[in-house]
Structure formats: structure tokens, C-alpha cells
């Protein structure tokens, strides 16, 4: 069963990177949307949510058009830096990041909107600067919601299939993630391998969802 552990390790790496990127991006965008008052805010929110509802193949095609060797950004990267993204683990990370991004920024936006502005005002009257205010008051009050979003995003990134197959392909040990390994095991009639991979995937996702459930806003934090 060693052939099953390689895709698991790779999938955890891809989902881990995607989640780390979304921690920064999702929190920043969530904060901007929660506090910003600008025209087109709702349209922007909807546009940023698109990857969550769009068919993965559509997203994969968009990515091919953008980061493919002959794509807009891909051709430029290849010409100036000799970077090829297609069929690399980086391409799998990009796909996973994009599909799981809406889960993070939505959770972050909701969490920031529930922070009591009076607490922030109190900190301001005590002379706390805006930067320190964010990291010492706002973020600590919102982190549970953000973390719950991050865990969901991690689970979503674990299962990403369609867009990943299109831009990262299926290279054993390099881009063959769990879901793609399942797909191939089923196609090749290797039911034992498929069963094992499916069990591993299900248990991993279940553990993540249980953890996310414990962090859901509104639950009293258990004092440890």
C-alpha cells in the first residue's frame, strides 16, 4: 500500500500551502470587505465567491488560458524567468488556493463584522495605533471564525480534482493528489487501492470537519 502514502503526503502539502496562502489573502480581503465602504462591494464579493460555485473544469480552463505555456501570464513567465507552471505541484497549489479562497474570505468577513466596534473605539481612546489595534484587538476577537474557515478551506483543498487534473496533470509522486489517485485506481480497476485511498480521504476530511465544528462561532471556548 506504499503507493497510497505518496499521494496522501503530496495532497497534505498542496492543501497546506493553499491554506497558508489563504490565511494571508483571505484575512486581508475579508477585512477589507467587512470594513470598507465602497461602491461595487457586493459585486466584488460575488465575483470572489465564483470559484466556489463554478464547475472545476471551467476554472481549470481559465487557468490553462492564464498560466499555460501559451497563456497570457504563462508565456511571460516562461520567456522572462523560464518558469513552467503546468504539470507542477505549484499548479496544483494555485488551483487548490483559488477554489478554497472563498471559504476563507467569507468566514473572515463574517468574523470581522461580528467584532464589537465599541471595543475597538475603547482601544483607540487609549492611544493604540491602527496597526496594533488590528493585531491586538480585532484579530484576536475574530480568529475563531477565521480558523473555522481555514479548516473548511483545507478540507476543500484536499478534495480538489477537476481544475487540478487540467493544470497539474497526473504525474505519480509529483502532481498525483489523493482525488486523482482515486480516479485512476477506479479507472484501472484497482479496487483495493481505491478503497484504501477513499478511506484515508474520508477520515482526513471527517477529522478536519470535526475540528472546524468545534471552532464554530457561538460555541463557548473550552478553557484548557
Amino acid at each position, binding site marked *: 500500500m506504499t503507493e497510497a502514502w505518496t499521494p496522501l503526503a503530496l495532497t497534505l502539502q498542496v492543501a497546506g500551502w493553499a491554506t497558508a496562502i489563504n490565511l494571508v489573502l483571505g484575512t486581508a480581503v475579508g477585512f477589507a470587505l467587512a470594513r470598507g465602504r465602497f461602491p461595487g462591494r457586493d459585486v466584488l464579493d460575488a465575483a470572489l465567491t465564483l470559484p466556489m460555485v463554478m464547475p472545476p473544469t471551467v476554472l481549470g480552463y481559465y487557468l*490553462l488560458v492564464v498560466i*499555460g*505555456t*501559451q497563456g497570457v501570464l504563462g508565456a511571460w513567465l516562461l520567456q522572462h524567468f523560464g518558469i513552467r507552471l*503546468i*504539470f507542477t505541484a505549484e499548479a496544483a497549489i494555485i488551483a487548490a488556493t483559488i477554489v478554497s479562497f472563498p471559504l476563507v474570505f467569507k468566514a473572515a468577513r463574517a468574523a470581522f463584522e461580528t467584532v464589537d466596534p465599541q471595543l475597538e473605539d475603547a482601544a483607540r481612546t487609549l492611544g493604540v495605533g491602527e496597526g496594533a489595534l488590528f493585531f491586538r484587538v480585532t484579530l484576536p476577537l475574530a480568529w475563531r471564525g477565521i480558523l473555522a474557515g481555514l479548516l473548511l478551506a483545507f478540507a476543500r483543498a484536499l478534495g480538489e480534482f477537476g481544475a487540478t*487534473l487540467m493544470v497539474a*496533470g*497526473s*504525474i*505519480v509522486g509529483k502532481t*498525483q493528489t489523493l482525488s486523482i489517485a482515486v*480516479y*485512476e485506481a*477506479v*479507472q*484501472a*480497476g*484497482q479496487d483495493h487501492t481505491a478503497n484504501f485511498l477513499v478511506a484515508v480521504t474520508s477520515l482526513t476530511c471527517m477529522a478536519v470537519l470535526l475540528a472546524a465544528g468545534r471552532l464554530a462561532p457561538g460555541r463557548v471556548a473550552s478553557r484548557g
Partner: protein
Amino acid sequence: MRVPLIRGLSLVFGAGLALGVQAADLTVSAAASLSNALRDIAPLFEAANPGTRVQYNFAASGVLLQQMAKGAPVDVFASADQDTMDQAQARGLVRASQRRDFVSNRLVVIVPANSPRTPASLADLAQPGYARIAIGLPASVPVGRYTKGVLEAAGQWRAIEARMVGATNVRQALDYVQRAEVDAGFVYATDAALMPDKVRVAFTVPTAKPILYPVAPLTAGPNAAMGERFVAFLLTPAAQAVLARHGFGKP
């Protein structure tokens, strides 16, 4: 606004029901490399058998076998290699006596049309200029099995395997090459002929055994009698002429 909503919903689901399979439908599961040729044959068969509609399901042969083994309602199976049909026969899905070879094909190495290099042999593909080579996954895609076979016979499999980008069917391998996302790929001559402006055939790879496509009606097909007629039709001069036009050879 409830009435328009209900009307809209009934429109959507009603359309779905209308697309359901009818009794006179013939379901043909065929290898991806046959898609263009078989699509052209369907109207000829439908004209000769009024009231019958041909429905195609194209994928890698191994995938089609798994679908049928898990109970997919299929009347005819056309595979790109003998191995997959042998497995279908071993599982009792088709009868040996009803199996026919109906076309032949050739394995070729292709490169993107704008590629500065043209490999002349399998050994050339082990050179530094070919970092990524599209090959059908040998576990489920016949073209991948043929490829692995010739590379093993040439003693090049280990060198090339490290550069392999797996394709889930032969058309995906073709697509990778035409997008220039890989440096070379193994496909059939008929696939390469679909995109003469996007890909260039570097050379034909001689295979130990000729590449013959077998076809057979399924013993448990919902429309078995029509399935037998379709298999017989593929061997008629009219159908063979269409297949030849798409670059397939005689069986």
C-alpha cells in the same frame, strides 16, 4: 412570483425527462480515438435502421470496461486494444464468437508544430530536449500500453518513464502536445491527423503486434439485437469507407 418559478422548474425537469433513454436507443461505448469516425457513421446506421438512435460514450478503453463491469447499460463495446476486450470476455460481458476486428491503426510520436526539434527515434526522446512526454496511463489506456511495450522492447522505458505526463485517454495526450505543454507525445496516426496545423508527426513507431481494434455486442445489452446489427454494419463497405477517410487502416 411563484407561478413563473414553478413553470421554470417544470421546464427544466421536463426537458431532463425528455432526454431520457428510449427503447430504440443503441448505446455504444467506444475508445476515445474512434470518436470522430464513429460520429460520422451514426447517421448512416440510423438511416439504415429507422427509429434507432445511436448514443456514444467515448473514453479510454479501460474506463469503459470498468463502467460495463459495474453494470452500465451498454449494447456495443469497441476497444482500442485486444487486452481490454480479452478482459471483457473473461468477465462474461462479451462472447468470443461475436468479436470482430474492424480497423487497424499506427502508433506515432508527435511534437508541437512549432517545436524546434524533431526526434527521429525512441532513443532521441531520452535526450535533454524532451523533459515532458505525454503518454496514456498504461493501467487504463491502450495507447499507453502499446507505448510502454515498445519502449520496454527498446530498453528506453526507464529513461522515458521519469519524463512521463500521464494522460487519461489518447485525446488528452494529443491536447497536451497541441498546447505545447509537453515536448512530445505518443498517439495514434488518426489522432495526429486531426490537428495537422498544431502537431507534427515525428515518426511512426513499429509495434510488435499490429494495432487492431476489436468490437463486440454485449451479451446483456438492453438492445442486444440492434447491437449485433451495429457490429455487422461496421464491416460493411459504407462504414469501412468512412473509417478509411479518417485514416484508419483495414483490419
